[in-house]
Every structure is written in C-alpha cells, then in structure tokens.
C-alpha cells in the first residue's frame, strides 16, 4: 500500500497552514464484504508531523478516522522554505513519509 500523500503548506504571516491528504482504506475490522466475511482491520495508528525536523504533532489514530483521511494543522513560527514532514504508520506496520516546503501565500 503506502500511497503518496498530498501535502500543502501555505504561509500566512508566521503561521504555516498545512493540509494533508492521505490514501488509506482505514478499515475498522467490523465491516463485512459482499461474501459476508469480515474485512480485517487496517488503519493508520500514528501520524507524526515535523517542522524542520522537529516534531510538532504526534497523534494516535483509531478506526474512527475515515477512509482517505484529511489532516489539517497550523504551525506557528514558520518561514517560507521550511520543511514539513509527515509520517504515518498503520497497524500492519506499513508506513509512509512525505515532505513539503512551506510556500508564501499567493
């Protein structure tokens, strides 16, 4: 799995408005498929966001988060050109890291 994320980070003053789109089935483990069998649990368990290498957000997710989730956050003290890193790890041990650069507001 581990499809690439889409990350936008736009500067407003000294705040980076960060928008992250992820592709993930986020299966709860309670849904049944068309044959009536349980679709196994498969969901993102942790998401870590870094700003120039420093962790600014460390989250634990559960099955309550929807398929193809969106995460938005604002990071204070940002400048244009700063690096935003996002890493997710799921319950199967699959992980994905993507990076974006903070761009000035257009």
């Amino acid at each position, binding site marked *: 799995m581990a*499809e*690439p994320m*889409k990350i936008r980070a*736009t500067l407003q003053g000294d705040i980076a408005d960060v928008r992250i*789109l992820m*592709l993930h089935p986020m299966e709860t483990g309670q849904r049944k498929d068309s044959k009536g069998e349980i679709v196994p649990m498969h969901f993102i368990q942790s998401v870590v966001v870094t700003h120039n290498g420093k962790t600014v957000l460390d989250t634990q997710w559960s099955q309550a988060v929807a*398929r*193809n989730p969106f995460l938005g956050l604002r990071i204070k003290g940002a400048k244009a050109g700063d690096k935003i890193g996002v890493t997710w790890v799921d319950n199967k041990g699959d992980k994905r890291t993507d990076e974006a650069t903070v761009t000035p507001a*257009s």
Partner: protein
Amino acid sequence: MPTTRGGIAAILLACLAVGGAAPALAQSDDPLGVGRKMLAEDNPGELWIERGKTLFYQKRGPKNASLEQCDFGMGPGKLEGAAARLPRYFPDTDKVQDLETRLLTCMVQQQGFDRADIVKRAISPGGSSGSDVEALALYITSRSNGMKVNVSLSHQKEYDTYKAGEYLFFRRSGQTDFGCVQCHGEANKRIRLQDLVHMTDKKGAQEVASTWPAYRGAHFVVRTMQWRLTDCFWQMRLPDMSYGSDMSIALTLYLNYQGNGAVIQVPGFKR
C-alpha cells in the same frame, strides 16, 4: 435546504486555486456551504491525478504501449484543453465520442486491451482503490483545469448527436415516468437532502460540464460522467446502461454544450 448552497459551493470550487490561502472559518448562516467548501478544498480525489498520470505514460497492455499517441481531438498526445472540447466527432472512428469512449478506443487500439474487459472494470466498487479508467479520465480532464468548456458543433454527426441528447433529456421512460428533466428541470429542488442540479439553466449545465470526474465521498473513489448516467438510470428504474453507449454520449454532448464557458476544475467533490 436551498440549492443555492450547492450552487455557491460549485462556484467556489470553480474559483479555487490549488495551494491557495486557507479559508476564513467565519461564522456562517450556511453551515452546509462551509462544510462543502472545506471538503472541496482538500479533495482526496486529487490523489487520483498522480495515479492517472502514471498510468497514462506507462507502457501497458499486450502491445506494451503508453497512451502518448492517443488523439483526444487536438492531435496525438496533446492533452492541454482536449477534455474541454469533448464530446466531439473523430474521423478515425467516424463517431462522436466522449472522453471515456475515446480513452477506450486508444486503450484497445494502441495498447491492445480487450474492450469488454476494460468496460467490466471501468466502474470500480465503492471503497476500492478505483479503476484505471477512473484515474486516467481524471488525469486527462485535469489537463484542462482552469480552462473554459468549449464544445462546438460543426460536423453533421455532432448536430445529430446534440439534438438526440436533447430529445433524450426530456424522454419520459419506465414506471417512474421520469426523464432527466423531471428532477433537473427546476431551480432549488432536492430529493431528500440531495440538492438537484438545475440543468436547464446555464449555471447548472456549467456545473455538470466542469466538475466531472469527481470524488464521490460516500464511495471513497473517483467517479466519472459515465458512472453518473448509469446511476441515474438505476434510480429511474430503467435497465443497466451500456457503458459508452451512443445514448450516454448524446446526453453528455447536450449537457456539456449547454455548459460552455464554465471553468473546468476537477476533481469535483460530490457526496
């Protein structure tokens, strides 16, 4: 729940620049509109564009070829603005074709895929990772993002097909006595809580012409116009629509032509 909310969301979607400034989450007397705007600004469907791009340039199929020689009406491999002019007549097939049937033509002729097989898988199950056709249709259309819908009629078959599409829009069929116009012929109408696009109005037609393919939130995949028509016929209690039928192309041509001037912005976001 007036359709103006849907209309406002559609206009905002059309005006949205990717990577633009964050919205002011101000107090609103239109919470649904605010919600729709938020969904439209961060649309998971955007992740299908990259997939479609990869599939487009990859050598695939029995003939091990990419789609770079596919002519969508502006010459082989020329994608910029091509979707904005579809459906249109193609001399090599001597048919009026929409984006998806043209894509099918190329996948069969240039890549050697089996038509029946592609058609079988063209509409993916909800909750899946989507079909190749859905990703490709989105990528190709996205190459017209920011451009105006510009469908023109010049070949006799285009004139014929347009008029047939108009006839079909108003044709009442089956035990529901529904033609498209029964649901899509008036402003500010909705079925349950689903706002209905007013397609006999310029703005409504423009929404149809410029927001497909779209991410269907409830299905978690990108959907296309062919899917949308199929789903309508299902609700109208009519039989299964044939993917890529002349009927579907005629309706699409009729609507897209009415929607001329709309700025294309895909993927759209639908519930």
